[in-house]
């Protein structure tokens, strides 16, 4: 039965699902209020009704019905019924250059996301933080998964990026209490924001040398301790620097990290990391992880490789930190502690090592789950770790590990069987 259901749906290409998603958000946009009124829901459920369901259990049927009417049915029906048309479109897109087809899919996906999030501000925040979590997870996967060192310093790199970019934007583009008048015309701010984030990333990358250089001589547990030490150095360093707010933190960053900006950075991050990890340069990371002497003997410059892994991972953590600071428009050193570390590590190991695809799944599921279970308060931190433990028992390497992202395969039309047959 379930198998049959999935077989019926297996002919729907990605483009078809996107169209289905688009229909769903259109329905929600125009009819959401009406539907929720007739289902006795106080307002349009924010996050698939999970918050309402947990707070007021008597509304569970209504919230489920809302999900069914607004999301599940339109996506399934439109996806399945228009599958022939969308397969034709997918075939057309397949003939285009890969980058163009990818950008079209991304743009469509962004459109859906934008409309869905546009309903209220809370959704926008959740989506932004989820996308930042994706950048963080993939970048930590570079170090912990691809390069195979257990690094605990990711929140530290993030803090470096967050503080460096916040300092720059506050100094250059904002009139605030801490640094006084803006040095440049604030109108330039949004345009120079990428440069600011880049600098934030570079600062984090330079900071990562403190962990990268010891990694030449030591591995495993010892390096994990060093990286943990680095995290505490950064955190207490910032706490003691009064000029950037000390333990009180920094606030009133300009609102530059809008939804499209975060989305573009996330796409860029995935694209660049994908390019890197599938190239010979990126494979060198795996070789150093699996057998360092062998890598050395096969002409791989292991020191350069380790440094690249750390600096590259830290760079993206710095960028994510910068975005994070400008999304919340407030940072304090307390944010970048062990709690954050546990969160990112959970995303990486839940999703799966050595896999971009897995990291995306891990970041999205843990972030969304974290938000959805918020009403449970304390129990949230019992349920999520339990899920993590269960995943580790049944899939010791995480949900989706050691796979490469194959964009072409994801976007292909589904009406023809693949040439290898099978399935």
């Amino acid at each position: 039965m379930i198998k049959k259901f999935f077989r019926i749906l297996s002919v729907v290409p990605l483009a078809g699902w996107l169209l289905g998603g688009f229909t769903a958000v259109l329905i929600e946009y125009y009819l959401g209020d009406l539907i929720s009124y007739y289902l006795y829901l106080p307002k349009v459920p924010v996050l698939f009704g999970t918050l309402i369901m947990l707070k007021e259990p008597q509304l569970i049927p209504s919230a489920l019905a809302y999900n069914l009417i607004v999301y599940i049915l339109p996506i399934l029906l439109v996806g399945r019924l228009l599958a022939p048309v969308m397969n034709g479109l997918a075939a057309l897109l397949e003939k285009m250059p890969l980058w163009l087809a990818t950008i079209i899919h991304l743009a469509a996906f962004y459109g859906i996301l934008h409309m869905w999030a546009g309903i209220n501000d809370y959704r926008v925040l959740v989506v932004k933080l989820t996308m930042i979590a994706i950048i963080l997870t993939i970048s930590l996967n570079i170090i912990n998964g691809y390069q195979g060192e257990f690094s605990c310093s990711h929140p530290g790199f993030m803090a470096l990026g967050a503080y460096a970019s916040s300092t720059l934007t506050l100094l250059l583009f904002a009139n605030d209490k801490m640094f006084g008048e803006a040095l440049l015309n604030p109108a330039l701010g949004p345009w120079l924001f990428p440069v600011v984030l880049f600098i934030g990333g570079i600062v984090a990358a330079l900071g990562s040398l403190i962990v990268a250089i010891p990694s030449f001589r030591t591995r495993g547990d010892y390096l994990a301790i060093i990286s943990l030490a680095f995290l505490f150095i950064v955190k207490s360093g910032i706490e003691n620097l009064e000029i950037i707010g000390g333990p009180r933190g920094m606030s009133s960053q300009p609102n530059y990290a809008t939804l499209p900006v975060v989305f573009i950075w996330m796409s860029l991050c995935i694209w660049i990391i994908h390019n890197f990890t599938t190239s010979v340069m990126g494979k060198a990371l795996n070789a150093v992880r699996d057998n360092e002497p062998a890598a050395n003997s096969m002409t791989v410059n292991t020191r350069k490789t380790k440094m690249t892994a750390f600096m590259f991972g830290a760079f993206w953590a710095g960028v994510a930190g910068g975005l994070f600071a400008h999304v919340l428009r407030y940072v304090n050193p307390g944010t970048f502690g062990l709690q954050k570390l546990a969160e990112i590590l959970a995303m990486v190991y839940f999703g799966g090592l050595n896999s971009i695809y897995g990291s995306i799944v891990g970041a999205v599921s843990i972030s969304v789950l974290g938000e959805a279970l918020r009403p449970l308060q304390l129990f949230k931190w019992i349920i999520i770790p339990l899920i993590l433990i269960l995943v580790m028992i049944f899939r010791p390497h995480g949900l989706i590990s050691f796979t490469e992202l194959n964009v072409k395969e994801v976007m292909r039309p589904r009406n023809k069987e693949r040439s290898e047959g099978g399935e």
Partner: protein
Amino acid sequence: MAPLLSVIDMTHYFGGLCAVNNFNLAIEPGQIKGLIGPNGAGKTTVFNLITGVYTPTEGTIELMGKNIKGLETHRIAAKGLGRTFQNLALWRHMNVLDHIRLAHYSQLSYGLFGAFFGTPKCREQEEQVIENSYKLLQIFDVKQFATQNIGNLPYGAQRRVEMARAMATNPKVLFLDEPTAGMTPDELIRMIEIIRQVHRDFGVAIFLIEHRMKFVMELCESIQTLVFGEVIAEGPPEEIQNNPEVIEAYLGKEDVH
């Protein structure tokens, strides 16, 4: 003319222990030389010293007339010294094709920027590497495993992948550390053929450590016998086979049975 690889008076101490004493070696282009000796004689240490895993305490090592002593392992490897390992040193989470691809590392020039953005130069070089990798996989008869994870391969095939990988670094001298260890007789015969083929097709000089006398006798032009870090005999196979000292130290036991 200087030999392709020359090692002169190489001595190495681990703390106070003399692991290798006054080791000399000269390999001419296209030669196959063997190194034999009982367990613990220091054969693998000799390999590790020449390939730069350790730096010898004394002595000189020259490849094509240029000093390579004290260089990092990956630089020595890039200069033309390929090797395999006694206990297979493969990358267990990587597939067969990636093993061969990665061994081209030093031959790539696109740099990190190219890798990040997939520049045309990067793509061109990567395609070339993949093409060349498939050629090597074909030669070593492991092409059918290209997309398989290395762990799924039978032992003999793993050995061949390791050799293909060493050849992908484009070596002038190939060091083989017990290439037939743990192989069945059938695989052994196949290995002899493959080494002959590599020697013929690539014109590479080979220096090998081996325990199986049949294998060494069949392949090598010249054999050195190492006992407790010292070379006690050197010469063509027949001579070594009949050398009383060698028989005593190494072959003796086999003769008794």
